[in-house]
Structures are given as C-alpha cells and as structure tokens.
C-alpha cells in the first residue's frame, strides 16, 4: 500500500497561522466553526489512547486539510497515515488503527478486507472507525455481514458538514449533491445540509428569517424547522449573527454555471480547476529566474498554490473581471517598487530600522505579485485566443436570446472538429435553457451529432441532462426566458468591467440570475417579481424562527444586516464574486456569507452529471 502523500497536509501546517487569520477577517468569524470542528476531532483522537495510524478515505484528505493539519494530528499521537486500499495494512508499530471514511458500502468492503487479512499477522492493534460526516446503519450492517463489526472498539461519526473555506465562504464539498437531488431522487445531501445549518445555528444563533426558492430549498427548510422542534428543549441563547438565510436551488438558475466565468478567480477555476483551495498550474512560467543558474532545469512538477483571502493581493483581484486584473497588477507593481525605493529616503537609523521591519511583508507582496502576474499571463494566452472569443460570442448570443431556436453553426462546427464533449454539452444545455427548451428537431439533431461523434454510450449522459432539466424538448408553452431576462435585467449592455456598478461585470454583461434573486430579495423584496418567481421551478417561501425573548437584535444605526445564502447543488466563483460585490456596495446595507454543497464550474458540474465520464478526446 502506498503511503499517503503528506505534502498536502504538511503544506497546510506551514500556513497554519494564515489559515486561521483568513477565516476571521469577515463580518462573521468562521473560525468559531473551524475551532468547533477541530475540538471534536481532538476529542475523538483522545478517545483512542496511545499511538495511532490513520487510514484515509482519500477523498477526505482535501476537506480535512481545511480543518486540521498534520501537526494537530501529530500532537495527538498520530504517527502514520495510509490511504485506504484493499489487502493487508502496511506495518506500523502503533496501538490504534483508525479508519477515516465516508459511509459508503464499497469502502466498508475494503475495511473488512483490511481487517480480515490483519488478524492473522497482528492481533494487538485496536481498530476504530470515524464516519464522516455521519455513521450509517447500512454500513455497520455491511461490516457485520463481513464479520468484522466486533473488531471495532470505537465507531463514531465526525459531523463535518460545512467546512469553512474562506472568510465568507462555507462549503460541504459534497460533490454529488446536485446529481443525487435531481437525478437520483436521493435527499441525503439535503439532510446533511439541514444538519449543517443546525450546527451553524448552534454556534451563531438561530437565524430568524428563512427565505427559499426551489423544491430542495423547501425540503431543507422543512427539515430544519423539524429539527428545531426536536431540539427545542436546549434553547439557543446566542445572539443571532445572521439575520436571514436564503436557500436557493441550483435548478432555479441552471444558466449561470454554464456560462464561462470571467472573473480572475473564476477563470483560474475554469481553466485549471481549484480544488479545496489549491490550484495546480503549469510550471514553466514559475521557473525561478536566478542569475547564473540559467534555465537548464525547468520544474516539471505542477506548481501548487493556495488561493484564499489571506493573500492580500489575491483578495484584492480575485473577484475582478479579468480585463481589470492587468491594470490592478501594474498598479500594485508600482506601489511595491515605490515601497522598495523608500530605502533611498531612509536616512536615519530609525527610518532604516522601520524599512527593514517592513521588508518581509514587502517581499511577500512581491512574490505574490510575481505569482499572480504569471497566472494572469497564462490566462491571457487563453482568453485572447480566437477559440475562446468565438465560444464567448456564442454564449453571449444565447444569453441575449439571439437565434436560440435553431441549430447553431458554431456548435455544429465544434462537434465536427471534435472539441471536448463537455464544451459541447455546456453550449447545447445553455441554448436549451435560454430557449426554455429546444425544438424536437433541433434537439434530436444535436443528440444524434453528439452520439455519432463521441459514442453512443453518451446516451446515458444525455438522458441525465434531460432528467435534470438542462436539456429539454420545448413544450407547448411559450419561451419565457426573454421575460425573465428582461424583468430581472439579466443582460446589461454596458457592463463596466473596470469599475463595476452592477453584478453583470462578472460575466461581462450577464448578471447571474441567482444573485439577482438575492439582490432583489434584499431590496425591494420578492413581492415585486412574483410573476417571474412563478416561472422559475419550485416553490418560493418565507419562514420565521422564533427567537427567545431577549435575543432580538437592537440594530445600530447604519449597521448592516447579514444574510447567509445557501446554494443547494453548487455555486460558481463568479457568483461568489457578485455577492461580494453586493456586500461592498455602500448603500446595500447587506453583507453576504455564502454556503454551498460544492464549489462548481460548468465543467465540473456537467461532469458530475455524466454517466461514463471520459477524458475528452482531442
């Protein structure tokens, strides 16, 4: 069995101070949540006295990295870490073996295999299981069937529902949530969402107002209210931090994730993919240009960078439209070099001392600038390409309702050129959504083209997309997308990318529907758009949660309200950027904290709906 790559966790340890810092900068201190999660982890580890080895379900290492680093585990006598694999456990001179796993049956079989092959060689080790995020009868039953259930001293659950991702961002990192809800009719993720929101309320106070739109939102709200009744005895005496909770189904706004994100962070995610706060980039641009060494050994390992608001420059530019990033970077470059020039002005010993004390900060700023300049160059190479431009043009045509009812030549050509399937699917789905369904002929044409070109097996994927409503045949009813677009002002002709005055800047013209709904909810309220809300799928509703007397907030003059927006089924970085923009608009009077089941982009989202996801053929 392969030893788990520790690099990820160790790398987190190095940035421990930063981690904690970036979570507490926001209006709501999400560090409390992280600390609560860490405490629980420590308590579990201490339950297994003596030295330990952890066997990881590999999927969990990423999310866990956001909560605890290797150093924390080490403090609690975790000496070895392995990845969960069939066969014999690797030798380790420890007293306890702890399995950190998701409650999945196939993983139970592996564990059972581990244990049955173990018994013959070692018998003195104690076994424990920690289910994340919840233990399951089904899994325990399976372990019992395999005859190993009795081998476990502790079977526990580690409720890791909402993971603090950044100062204003929580994610459950529940990849299959959308698929489960809309394809498989499986509400497990919603149950976990409700549980997670209960945990959040236990720490940050009862949220007095709940709004929602969509079937899943309704279900989550129902579960929350029910759970609240269930726990009513232990009344929460914490002053509420959040004023409002808004639950939004992803299927209320299927369009937004399909569009190419045009913010800096959004583009990084679209092109390279951000996973658990890290991005892997091609190394060429990051070669150390040191004099004398030449460029003989270019790094071949991808460059791994952590991306969060702890990095001052990144916090500043992440949410900008990419077209405004260049200017921001060069401005920053000037400031930094000016700061370095200061040394010439430093005359007295005191001044020099002050300059030196600022050096580490300045050097960090300079290396951060260098990194982001390199990333921006990488992205620019792509955004200036003709292919990117053509694709964007078609997207924007669809979003503005141009020729959405016929077969699109660009898509046709892309299929003929065998462009990546996901790209095709994104475009076709987008056309379908913007046309409130495709004509039978058009849809069958696309489907046949796709199946003939990429293989018949994709019929399952197409079925899934139809089931999820991303691809649908036009029914008798009229195309209502133009009405929605106009009422909600989804297309702004004069989007200002440099100095935005509207959220439409994140897609250079298109304002994400989900965020418009959020914006309108805050002011002037959903009553003004009843008609449109009815056109969007699922019910919309409002619920109030009674606060114990004495916890009613006395609002200071000019104090902002805080809304937690929960995206059920995923949210994109561009949508997050738009919400951050709204938080910063001075007269909005509203601050937003974002929570989601998973951070997504069009590609990862469509991929999660595919049934035989294959690497796109060139």
């Amino acid at each position: 069995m392969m030893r788990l790559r520790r690099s990820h966790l160790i790398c987190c340890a190095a940035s421990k101070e930063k981690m904690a810092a970036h979570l507490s900068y926001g209006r709501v201190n999400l560090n409390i949540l992280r600390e609560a999660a860490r405490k629980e982890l420590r308590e579990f580890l201490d339950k297994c006295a003596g030295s330990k080895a952890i066997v990881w379900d590999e999927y969990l290492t990423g999310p866990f990295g956001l909560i605890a680093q290797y150093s924390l585990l080490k403090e609690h006598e975790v000496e070895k870490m392995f990845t969960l694999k069939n066969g014999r456990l690797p030798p380790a001179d420890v007293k306890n073996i702890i399995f950190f796993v998701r409650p999945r049956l196939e993983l139970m079989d592996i564990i059972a295999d581990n244990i049955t092959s173990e018994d013959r060689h070692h018998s003195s080790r104690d076994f424990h299981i920690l289910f994340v995020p919840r233990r399951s009868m089904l899994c325990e039953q399976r372990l019992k069937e395999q005859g190993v259930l009795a081998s476990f001293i502790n079977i526990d659950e580690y409720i890791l529902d909402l993971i603090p991702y950044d100062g204003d961002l929580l994610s459950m990192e529940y990849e299959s949530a959308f698929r489960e809800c809309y394809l498989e009719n499986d509400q497990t993720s919603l149950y976990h969402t409700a549980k997670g929101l209960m945990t959040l309320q236990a720490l940050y106070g009862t949220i007095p107002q709940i709004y929602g739109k969509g079937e899943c939102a309704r279900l989550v709200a129902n579960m929350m209210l029910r759970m609240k009744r269930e726990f009513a005895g232990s009344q929460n005496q914490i002053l509420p931090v959040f004023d409002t909770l808004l639950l939004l189904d992803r299927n209320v706004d299927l369009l937004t994730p399909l569009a190419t994100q045009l913010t800096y962070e959004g583009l990084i995610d679209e092109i390279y993919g951000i996973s658990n706060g890290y991005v892997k980039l091609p190394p060429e641009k990051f070669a150390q240009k040191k004099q004398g060494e030449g460029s003989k050994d270019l790094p071949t390992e991808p460059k791994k960078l952590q991306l969060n608001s702890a990095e001052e420059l990144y916090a500043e530019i992440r949410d900008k439209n990419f077209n405004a990033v260049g200017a921001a970077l060069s401005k920053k470059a000037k400031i930094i070099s000016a700061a370095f020039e200061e040394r010439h002005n430093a005359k007295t010993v005191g001044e020099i001392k002050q300059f030196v004390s600022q050096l580490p900060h300045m050097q960090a700023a300079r290396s951060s600038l260098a990194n982001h300049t390199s990333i921006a160059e990488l992205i620019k190479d792509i955004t200036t390409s003709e292919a990117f431009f053509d694709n964007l043009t078609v997207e924007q045509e669809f979003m503005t309702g141009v020729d959405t009812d016929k077969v699109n030549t660009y898509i046709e050509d892309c299929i003929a050129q065998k462009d990546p399937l996901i790209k095709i699917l994104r475009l076709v789905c987008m056309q379908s959504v913007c046309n409130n369904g495709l004509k039978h002929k058009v849809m069958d044409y696309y489907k046949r083209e796709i199946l003939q070109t990429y293989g018949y097996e994709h019929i399952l994927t197409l079925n899934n997309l139809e089931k999820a409503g991303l691809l649908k045949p036009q029914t008798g009813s009229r195309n209502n997308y133009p009405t929605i677009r106009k009422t909600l002002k989804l297309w702004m002709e004069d989007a200002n990318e440099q100095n935005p005055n509207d959220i439409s800047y994140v897609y250079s013209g298109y304002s994400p529907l989900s965020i418009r709904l959020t914006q309108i909810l805050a002011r002037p309220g959903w009553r003004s758009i009843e008609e449109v809300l009815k056109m969007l799928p699922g019910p919309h509703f409002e619920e109030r949660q009674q606060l114990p007397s004495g916890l009613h907030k006395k609002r200071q003059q000019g104090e902002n309200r805080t809304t937690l927006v929960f995206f059920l089924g995923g949210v994109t970085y561009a949508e997050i950027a738009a919400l951050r923009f709204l938080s910063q608009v001075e007269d909005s009077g509203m601050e937003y904290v974002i929570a989601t089941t998973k951070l997504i982009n069009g590609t990862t989202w469509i991929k999660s709906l595919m049934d035989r996801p294959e690497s796109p053929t060139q």
Partner: protein
Amino acid sequence: MAFITASWNPLGDAFYRSTDLYEMSWSLRDGLRDSLVAAAPYGGPIALLREPQRRSPSSRPQLEIYSASGGTVASFPWKSGPVVQLGWTVSDELLCIQEDGTVLIYDLFGSFKRHFSMGQEVVQSQVMEAKVFHSPYGTGIAIVTSSSRFTLATNIDDLKLRRLPEVPGLQGKPSCWVVLTQDRQTKVLLSNGPELFILDNTSCTVVCPPGLSPQDGNIVHMSVSFSYKYLALLTDSGHLWTALLLHPFNLEFTCLPRCRRPKSQQPSVVLMWDRLLLVVGVCNETIQYPIEDPCVLVGEMDGVRIISSSNQELLQEVPLVCQDIFKIASMAPGALLLEAHREYEKSSQKADEYLREIKEQSMLGEAVRQCVEAAGHEYDTNTQKSLMRAASFGKCFLTDFSPDQFVTTCRELRVLNAVRDSSVGLPLTHTQFKQLTLQVLIDRLVYRQFYPLAIEVCRYLKIPDYQGVSRVLKHWASCKVQQKDLTDDAIARAVCMKVGDSPGVSYSDIAAKAYECGRAELAIKLLDFEARSGEQVPLLLKMKRSQLALSKAVESGDTDLGECFTGRSQPLQTGFCKLQEQETLKDLYNQDDDHQELANYYVTASYREKRLEGRLSLLQSAVDEYNKAKNEFAVKTTEDEMRLLRFQRKLDDEKGAGLLGLSLQVTMETLLSLGLHKQAEQLYKDFRVPDKRYWWLKLKSLAEKEEWDELEKFSKSKKSPIGYLAFVEVCIKCNNKYEAKKYVSKVTPEQKVKAHLAVGDLEGAADAAIERRNEAEIGAVLSRCSASNSLVIERLNRARAAIAKK
C-alpha cells in the same frame, strides 16, 4: 407555641415526639382487625385485604388501596387464591403473595400487571409466611414453606429464585425470621426456639449472640432496622436484646456502646402490644404510649408511622436542632434568635438584648442556620413560619450570608406542605424527601396522576423543562390515550393542546402507548405531531403502515432510515439500492415498470459485457424497454448503435481494422485513413451523417494524407456545404500554400479577405476589401501590413478615406 415540647418524651438523653399526620379519611367497618395490611415507606400507599383466609366463593374478600392519608385509590374483590402477604415495591407496585407461591403484581390503581411463581415445589408445600424487603437493587421476596424451606428472590424485576438450604431441626415455620441484605448479599436470620441461625445460599450456620444466653428464653420476635444496621431480638422471657450489625453476615454483634452517642439518632426499639406501644432505648429507659385500636407500624428511615383505623402519627426522635431550639431554657443561638424575633414582633426592646447576646458569641450565622434547619423538620406550618421568620430576621443583621439554604428550604417546605395535604397524602419528612430526591417525588406524583400538582412543582422549583414539565406531560399524555371513553379525535386534540410543542415530549412514545392499547388510528393522529420524522418511521412500520412510514422517511431526508425498507418496492429505495446491488436495482425498476430506467440499466450493463453477442442482446433488451417507454429517439439510436457494432465486427473480421467500440465519427475517420473510402461512404449514407460533418471529416482526412488530387476531386464533387474557406484553412494547416490558393477563388465574397489573408496574399486581400468597401475588413488587412507594403497601405488608406467621405 410554648407547648411544642408538650408532646416530647425524654428517653435517655434524647427526646421522642409523636406528630399527628392525618385523621384517616377512610371509613373501615372493622378497623384493621383481621386484615392483611401493607403500607409502603416514604409515605407510600396502604393496601388492605380483609379476611384473607376466607375461602368461600360467595363472599370474596375486598382488596382496597388507599393513599397514606386514607383516601381511596382503588377497591376490588379479590378473585384469586388465598393471600399470605401483601407488600409494595420501590416503584409503588402492589405485590400479593398467594399461598400457592404465585405473586401477583398490581399497579397503584389496582390494575393487574403481571404475575410470577416462587417455584414449582411451593405449589404443593404452600407458603407459610412471606416477607417483602427492599435493597438498593430493588424489591425482593422471601418465603418459607410448610416444609420449612426458604426461597428468595432478591429482585422481582429480574427474577432469580434461590432455594436456601434446609435448617437442621426446624419443623414447621420458624418462630421468627428476618431478611438481611447488604452489599449484594441477602441472607435470612431465623430463630427456632432459643437458637439463632443464619441462612445463606449454601449453608445454614448457628450463631450465638454475645450476651444472650439460652436461659433468656426462646426468641419470639426479631426486627431489623430500616437501614439494616440494627437488630433487635425479643425473648419469651421478656428480654430485649439489641445489637449493631457490623457485618450482618458474619453476625459479628457488637453490643451497643452505652455512652457513645452518635450525633444523629440513637437506636431505639418500638414494641407494640394490643394496647400498648413501648419505645425502648439502649439506655434501658422506656416510653409508653397507650393505644386503643389495633395499629400498623411502618418503619421509616427517621421514625415510625403508626397507622390506626382513625388516625396516623409519626413517632420519631426529635431532631437535635429542634431540641436545641425548643428545649426548655435552651441557650442555643437558634433558640435565642427565635426568642429575639418573638420580642421584636411584640415591639419589645428585649429583642435587641437577645440579638446582642448571640452576636457577642458571633453565633448569628449559626443561629440562622439552626432556625432554617429546624423549620425543615417541623410539620406544623405555623412553627415552620415562625422559624423561617426568625431566620429571615436574623439574616438582616448579617452581611455575606449565603441565602441559598434559606431559599431552598422555603421552596422545599412549600412543596412538602403541598404533598402532605391529605388530598395528596404523601407524609414525607424533610429528611425522607432529601433521600427520595425531587425527581422521584415528581415521579410519584405523576404515578398517582396528580399531574397539575406535579407541573406546578416543576414550574415552582424551576426544573428545566426536559426533566420537569415535559416529563409530566408525557406521562399525562400516555395515560390520556388509555382513556377508553373518549374518541380518538378528542384525545388527540386534548393531547396536542396541552403538550403542544413542549420540548422533549416525544409524540412517537405517546403514539406507541396508544398503539399498545390497540388504538392505531389515534397513534397515527398523534404521530402527525411528532417533530422527528425519523422517530415516526419505526412505529409506523410496526403498525404495518408502510406507505405512510415511507413518506415520513422521505420527509426526514435521512437516507439511512431506508434501511427499514429493505425488500420493499419503493421509489425511495433506488437511492439505497444504488449503494447496494445493481441487480436489486434492476428488480426494482422492473417492479415499478420504470422502462426508461430499466433500458438505461441495460445500456450500462452492455458496456460491462465483453462479448459482442452479449452486448448486442443487452442492447436489444434496452431497445425493447425504450420502446415500452415510448422513447423513439433512444430506440432509433440504440438500433443504430447495434448496427454500427455489427458493421465494425464485420470489417474487423474482413480487414482487421480494429474498429469495434469506436464512435461512428472515429470509425469513418479510421476507414478514410485506411483508404476504405467506399465503406466510409456507406456509413455516411446509412447513418444519415450530416453533409457538413462528413465534408469536414473527409477534407481533413485527405489533407492529412496529402492526397491533394483526391481533395480537389472531392471539392468539385458538389457544392461544398462547409464553404471553401475551410479548404483554404485546412491546406494552410497542412503547410500547403499552393493547394490552398486553388480554393481562394471559390470562397464566398464575405470570406474572400479572410481567405486571401490566410494564404498570405495581402494584395488580393486588399483588392477584395476595397471592392467590398468594408471598413472593418480594410482595417483587418491594414493590421497585417508591415512597413514594406507601403503601396498596399496607401491604397487601403485612400479607399478608407473614400468610404468615409460618402
């Protein structure tokens, strides 16, 4: 007030008092004579069975249950066999031990709960005597049969019968016996004439208590104290012998030391004759109380309750603190404080003198404490009040005095006074209350169905809802659902109204109770109020309402609950099954007639199948299902897929082309690259591939293979559906400018500029742009010009100017 000590009787250093508890509210025709009586300690209920030995079926004895104050709780004719002994368990259940060894258990309200037997052998030999005893582990029963054998059960809730060994020389029943229990061991101490035996599981040992010689006569009575600490033996010669049981089982008796007076109570023995009650202290002094009626004695931890047919008294040693305060001429600080307060109320300056006296000794705190403590021990509310007032008065002169004890005592007294009321009838002393704990007291109130009082107590003492009000409501509701005279609706409404959303009340528990009583409909109504869907599911399943259970499980969202549904065909289950077995999934779709999903299942399966035949047959199944699902497109597509597979197989066999499994497009690509144009053409036609895509394919393929003549021929075969710019661009991509130029002329006017630029012909591009008078195109050409093309630039600029003029 002054006469508080009037009811005190000295016994050695101590005083004894008897307090009137109740005038019994029962009316017994024959008093307690000829009756079996059992009264539970801690102010427990009283059970009465008149003439238990009467066997004629015509007049059955009556079994009556009363509260401690004599209020009737239940009364019913005894229809079962002759009863030897009655007794109460720690949880206020009535035990009726019959001659044949059967023990019947009734609840407080006389409803039969269950029964068990003390062993087969008892049935023949008959129970002679039985005793009910309590230990920390529960309530036990010991019997002795006519064959002089003892049988023990230490805990009736966890019945394990133990037959004790024979006692040598014992004929018939022993003259007297007691059960001793300590440290999980239970033994029987018995006497046969002057001899004393100890009987345990395995052996029977003779014991000789020191200081008691056989000359003292036969032992006729023995008694063990409430705490199993003291033993008293009475011989027929009138000797009373008491001992402290250090270790009851080795029976190491220690004669009680005379002078060492324990701070609390001194043991004393109460003996009762027909008309006389005698309290005997170790100091050899006695107090005599005459009695008129036959009485029943109930041992309590801090005294003895004397129940007669007309009234009830509590006989106890006066607590020390009360002695200190009320003893005549006592100078204890508490006594002085009480006096001071009395003078204060009379507005007499003597109050100050008394206070000064206490303060000089710095005993004021102690004085307050004494008063508060004494108030706790007093039964009379006036006395309680005057003591508490004195304490409160004294408190005024103290700084830094914690009010806790005062407040707690006040509250507890209020509760105690309420439960002592004869309508409730729980005559608990403060000491007993402390031992019993508040929780148990509330439980007892609930058990006696004093729900409003219990709720008041909980609210008054501010017990958290979870342990207090909610618990009471839960019991109330569970009891309510058993009322047979009310309709389901009425009960559900009443329960919902009272219980509402009280935290911690589980509607499913209440519903379970209703279901137990056979009221399924009511149970379902109640379940609707259950907040936790998860909790509803198991009960609904038990009630065989699977449809409802299912919808509740869905509502809860907890997939894990689906475990309950294994083996049932339900849509919810698909989620669980996806986790489990593919095969189960298929069955499920089959049962549900979900043809679409079933077809998808076959498609998925076909990709796992390696043999072509298997694959085709699975696909055929898929086609059938898609047909049933009326999904024409899928039918067509899947048929196409099968056709393609067969085609690929054929060509693979014939030419070894390695096509199987490729997509249609890639298949055609491969065919073209292999030069199998005809076959590619066939696919193009058979599968109705759009011209555009086929042209692209062929164009690229020919260009890649550099078959330029073929390409030219192809371009002329008919009008290109993809235009000719594509030809130009593909040729350039393959680095053949020469070939590319051939197609420039065929390009549509709109694309001319682009085509010229693509082959690097600036002049041509300029001509085209100028001809089309298109400013944007002129700009595009200009941007490609370098300084060496000054002529072209000039021309373009002129043209642009000309357009601008117009």
